[in-house]
């Protein structure tokens, strides 16, 4: 009967598959990367170019998950089922280094790949924003200082915060806490804005820290856990919304959103390189030293990523929106990778 043959075939292939499963478990020849969604486009471009330029290595695979998510995966341990590189849009935290060490990841090589600006953008048919850190703080805080006292945030329109801002409802879409961008946003915008008040300066350091980062909970501040496209969708749905984006995302969607100036500076590649635009930050990736020499091409990929050909001026990564490192920095970082200088 044909049925019997069919059954035999199916059973045989099931057995064969399960055997090959066991046989394949050791060893991996593809570099596995995960982490920051800000670094993801750059990392993907670098991976693709690497795969195309090095015939002997496979193209690295790049996942997202946010800086914190990536570093958590990174610190899960050593071995082929853990990732080799974590992308991060902020420096690794001491607690994360501890977590890594607890799981046997002792050799963490930090690689800075360049810079990125964080911009505030609104829909092109919305008002023009000229923001100061103070304005952003007043828009998102739970409590604001007024005449020496802390009162619940009374502002519902930007024009109430400052006459120069557009008369539109406050609706701020900021990155969720899984994103490294959030930390930079708080550190470079919210906290400086908050510290500009005499009332806050009078507080103790701990109290001031808590006070500055407390967010209003009336729905005017939305935390976006996903990518910038989600923030863009929010802007498309609500005309008044102001979103936080990476400069490169804005550059690719200039026909849909327009940027706000921060402290009077327009965010551009030049103003960020010159250090005039206040909300910029370095981008990193972290290489698992234990995997160098085990996963083929790991060292070469790290070196290629920061090479002038891949991420210097006129390179594919610059075209993708990365702000290149200064030449001195680049040489230093390359030296660190070659020497496997660990944290």
């Amino acid at each position, binding site marked *: 009967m044909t049925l019997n043959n069919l059954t035999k075939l199916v059973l045989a292939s099931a057995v064969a598959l399960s055997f090959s499963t066991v046989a394949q*478990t050791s060893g991996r020849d*593809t570099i*596995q990367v*995960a982490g920051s969604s800000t670094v993801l486009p750059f990392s993907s471009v670098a991976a693709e170019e690497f795969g195309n330029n090095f015939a002997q290595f496979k*193209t690295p695979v790049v*996942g997202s998950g946010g800086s914190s998510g990536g570093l958590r995966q990174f610190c899960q341990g050593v071995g082929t089922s853990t990732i080799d590189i974590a992308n991060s849009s902020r420096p690794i935290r001491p607690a994360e280094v501890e977590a890594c060490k607890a799981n046997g990841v002792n050799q963490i090589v930090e690689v800075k790949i360049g810079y990125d600006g964080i911009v505030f953008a609104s829909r092109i048919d919305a008002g023009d924003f000229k923001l100061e850190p103070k304005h952003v703080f007043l828009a998102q805080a739970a409590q604001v200082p007024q005449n020496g006292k802390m009162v619940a945030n009374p502002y519902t329109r930007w024009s109430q915060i400052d006459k120069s801002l557009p008369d539109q409802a406050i609706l701020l879409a900021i990155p969720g806490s899984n994103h490294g961008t959030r930390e930079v946003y708080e550190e470079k915008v919210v906290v400086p804005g908050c510290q500009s008040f005499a009332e806050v300066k009078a507080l103790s350091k701990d109290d001031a820290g808590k006070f500055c980062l407390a967010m209003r909970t009336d729905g005017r501040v939305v935390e976006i856990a996903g990518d910038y496209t989600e923030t863009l969708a929010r802007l498309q749905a609500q005309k008044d919304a102001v979103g936080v984006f990476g400069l490169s995302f804005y550059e690719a969607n200039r026909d849909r959103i327009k940027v706000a100036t921060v402290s009077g500076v327009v965010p551009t590649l030049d103003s960020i390189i010159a250090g005039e635009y206040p909300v910029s930050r370095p981008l990193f990736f972290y290489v698992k030293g234990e995997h160098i020499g085990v996963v083929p091409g790991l060292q070469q990929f790290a070196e290629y990523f920061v090479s002038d050909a891949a991420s210097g001026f006129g390179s*594919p990564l610059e075209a*993708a929106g990365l702000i290149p490192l200064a030449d001195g920095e680049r040489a230093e970082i390359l030296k660190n990778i070659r020497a496997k200088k660990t944290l």
Partner: protein
Amino acid sequence: MKVAEPLIKPVITAGTVQQKVNASLARRHRKERVFKSFGLAAVLASLALVLILFINIFSKGLPAFWQSAITLDIYFDPQVVNISEKPVQAANESDNAFRQRDIEWQTEVGFINFNRLITDSLEKVLPDARQHRRDLQRIVTSGERFALRDMVVQDPGIIGQTRTLHLLTDANIDVWLKGNIDRSLPDAMQQLSPKMREWVQQLSEQGLIQNRFSFALFMNADSRSSLASAGLAGAFMGSLYMMLVVIVLAVPMGVAAAIYLEEFAPKNRFTDFVEVNINNLAAVPSIVFGLLGASVFIGWFNLPMSAPIVGGLVLSLMTLPTVIIATRSTLKAIPPSIRQAALGLGASKMQAIFHHVLPLAIPGILTGAILGVAQALGEAAPLLLIGMKSFVASVPGSPFDQSTALPVQIFLWQGNELRNFFEARTSAAIIVLLALMISLNALAIWLRKKYEKRW
């Protein structure tokens, strides 16, 4: 109401019944009409919603099956493509040594600036090209230089010859030509520089830039450095491998389990318990299987992350209850007389089932299996948790290579930052997935119709 007196029977003539019926008829007909119109309204509303969805997807996605390409005469200039002879394996050379030499040669080819060939050719059609080198570099999408390299690697004899090629233009040129960006916006908000827009206008008037069928969409893997050449091949192969795993694992296991439960298992508390749990398993949200897959298959069995084998295993778990339930209901529908006849003629139970019941059940089992596989094909949620939403720039060669899947690719493209280009591309990917799903479902219906037996 007045109670009728017992001895005097109420006189019911045909006329009064008629009157009563006539009186209620209008009301009853109205009720029926109302119910029918509600039903019809529900059908129409759902049809309208499906129609809106389809119109939306197709109007956005269909144009993406064609994309702008530029026709250029590429001269493989020996001055630019200056490479040594392609290595040929000598008779006494080991495979490894040859591979080493081959890789060295390919690396050498990799150092060639194939962009030069493209810009040289562009300079011939654009007289003022030299003054705008940066813009010139951006006309053809960056991935095409690797296409030229691959042509040389495959056949070095091409060096010194001229070939007429259709090269994909930059994604932003495609966006501009299709009108997916507002052309009236000021320069500062445009993606193309004024010079490039002028060139694009000129080249498309000359007929050099044309909308051509996008083979890239089907032949290429995903790309981020050359957005115009991003394609579905990697995701398709990933999905295919996963479906193979599902067919090899879930279908035989599900059918075997169903035959045992339906035909052999004693009816007791234990089998009741198993049955209840299979139904529960069918109701478990798919994302839970993803969590399970991440902790068991990747965490314990050390299977590779982002690999179709793990995706296939997870989807097999998800499909298993569907297959079991479908197979059991098919077996139930086979009349007991078939079994009894076989048993009466002296067949063993095993023979009765495998020789008589199962062949009759095959169409139903196949239908259930195909529907299960189709469901697995469209599933994205569990795959996100086992690392399959990574960016993978190569087509997987085996179920153990890293890969994405079609539904996940839709998710990834939805998140791509060049919205103007990828909104259409995403809808095109949806159309491809829908086409696959519909053809699988059609196959299931066809099988059922063709082999269906009525008792």
